[in-house]
């Protein structure tokens, strides 16, 4: 072996060593959100600035979150358990209002309109900003009634024909109509897990929302049902803005255009998904997506 080879062998580390001349510029502390959290005003669907959430006993769950969510984009929110990603998601349609002792501060606007404004009705807001949860939760009613529930509540259909039309088109958009068209009057709870989740998506779509929030929508599903939902999310992006919280980083990588990484209640990085998964800008993001966290 030549001298250089020996040097090289000595330099070849047994474990990951810091790159000489490498990533010293990496931020290790969280002083603000790195990457590209903000968008052009015209592309912005949701605008949030200085959002803080406190639970009972003044326990702060999220700290000063500033981010824009784009029109017709899928934004994935990732981070370890308890990092505040679901809490932030629930701020967007004021679901946190339903939790006793929970207080939200900061400025959140949907199409420029303050969602905490005096004239804002949370029920109507939740029709504009629908939500799909981790566990499929169809009502104990027929498939038809599950989907028709929202439109009936909000008076979106003038007659039975219009309601039929809404139910059919919602089920079609959710990719479920073909599978259930002959048994619309059977209970929604009789469907498989993946079908139930698509039924919940159809129920959300039925009230013509602008934004769909999804909180780990496929974590209770098998890989095939997951793939169907992911395919559906990509199609739905044409008509809706989608914010998805997921524990599966591969899922975030597959379906989103932008990814937001939360850590201990702070928004660490927001970037194009490609950047986050190939060359993240913050050390904490890097640690999390490469499995070095904890």
């Amino acid at each position, binding site marked *: *072996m*030549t001298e*250089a*080879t020996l*040097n*090289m*062998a000595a*330099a*070849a*580390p*047994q*474990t*990951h*060593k*810091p*790159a*000489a*001349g*490498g*990533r010293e*510029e*990496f931020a290790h502390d969280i002083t603000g959100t790195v990457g590209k959290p903000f968008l052009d005003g015209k592309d912005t669907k949701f605008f949030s600035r200085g959002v803080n959430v406190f639970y009972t006993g003044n326990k702060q769950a999220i700290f000063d979150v500033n981010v824009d969510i784009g029109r017709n984009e899928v934004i994935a929110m990732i981070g370890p358990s308890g990092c505040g990603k679901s809490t932030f998601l629930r701020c967007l349609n004021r679901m946190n209002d339903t939790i006793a002792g929970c207080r939200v501060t900061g400025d959140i606007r949907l199409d420029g309109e303050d969602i905490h404004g005096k004239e804002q009705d949370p029920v109507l807001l939740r029709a504009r900003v629908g939500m799909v949860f981790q566990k499929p939760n169809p009502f104990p009613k027929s498939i038809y009634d599950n989907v028709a529930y929202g439109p009936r509540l909000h008076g979106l259909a003038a007659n039975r024909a219009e309601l039929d039309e809404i139910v059919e088109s919602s089920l079609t958009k959710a990719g479920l109509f073909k599978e259930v068209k002959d048994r619309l009057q059977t209970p929604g709870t009789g469907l498989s897990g993946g079908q139930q989740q698509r039924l919940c998506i159809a129920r959300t779509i039925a009230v013509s929302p602008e934004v769909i929030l999804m909180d780990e929508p496929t974590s209770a599903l098998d890989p095939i049902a997951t793939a169907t939902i992911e395919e559906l999310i990509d199609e739905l992006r044409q008509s809706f803005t989608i914010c998805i919280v997921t524990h599966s*980083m*591969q899922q975030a*990588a597959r379906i989103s255009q932008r990814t937001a990484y939360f850590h201990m209640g702070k928004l660490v990085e927001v970037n194009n998904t490609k950047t*986050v*998964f*190939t*060359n*993240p800008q913050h*050390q904490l*993001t*890097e*640690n999390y*997506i*490469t*499995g*070095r*966290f*904890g």
Partner: protein
Amino acid sequence: MNNTQHTSHQYNQELEAARSKLMTMGGLVETQVTDAIKALLERDSALGEKVSFSDYEINTMEVAIDEQCAEIIARRQPAASDLRLLLTIIKVITDLERIGDEAEKVGRYAVEMTETASYGDLHNSLRHLGEHVKAMLSDTLDALARLDVKQAMQVVSNDQQVDEEFDSITRQLYTRMLEDPRNIKDSLNVTWCARSMERIGDHCKNICEYVIYLVKGKDVRHTNLEKMRDEILGND
């Protein structure tokens, strides 16, 4: 790249194994190049033969490392710096294998040219080119082992000098061939050897560009030196 360990120790070990195999392959290639140039300059046909017979070891390592990387990708779905590390390894071993091929060629010509009367003035020029290329390869492997971007950039800029030296040898050979057509056969052999050395320089440059990609996450292939410097230094 950072010194924080993966939660999975097995993953650490898998990446480390691929990385250290890459380093071993680098060492092997370096020995081949050193021996090939020595055989050429010292007219050592036994050494030349040894070099051309040993190339298969490098080829075998290339296949094994590729397989190892494919397995890690399939099992772990690496991201960020881990993904860049694996992409870099896969790319670097291709260049290393080609450097091995060039060394093997030089080794073969060294055997053939043992009978050549004299390289004349060319001996010095070839020696100089050989030294330069060996230093470039050694710096490349150092930069790779230490993930040293500055050293990698230095190698990239050195490649131009190797190209110039090769051009100068080519001009000397033209003259030699014009002077006496009986020199043509030997001169062509010398040209192929010089060409192989010049190619080794190019492969070193490629490897250094991958090192920059690995550390900085920026693809600097097919850009000029100025732009590369701006891109890299702009990041510091």
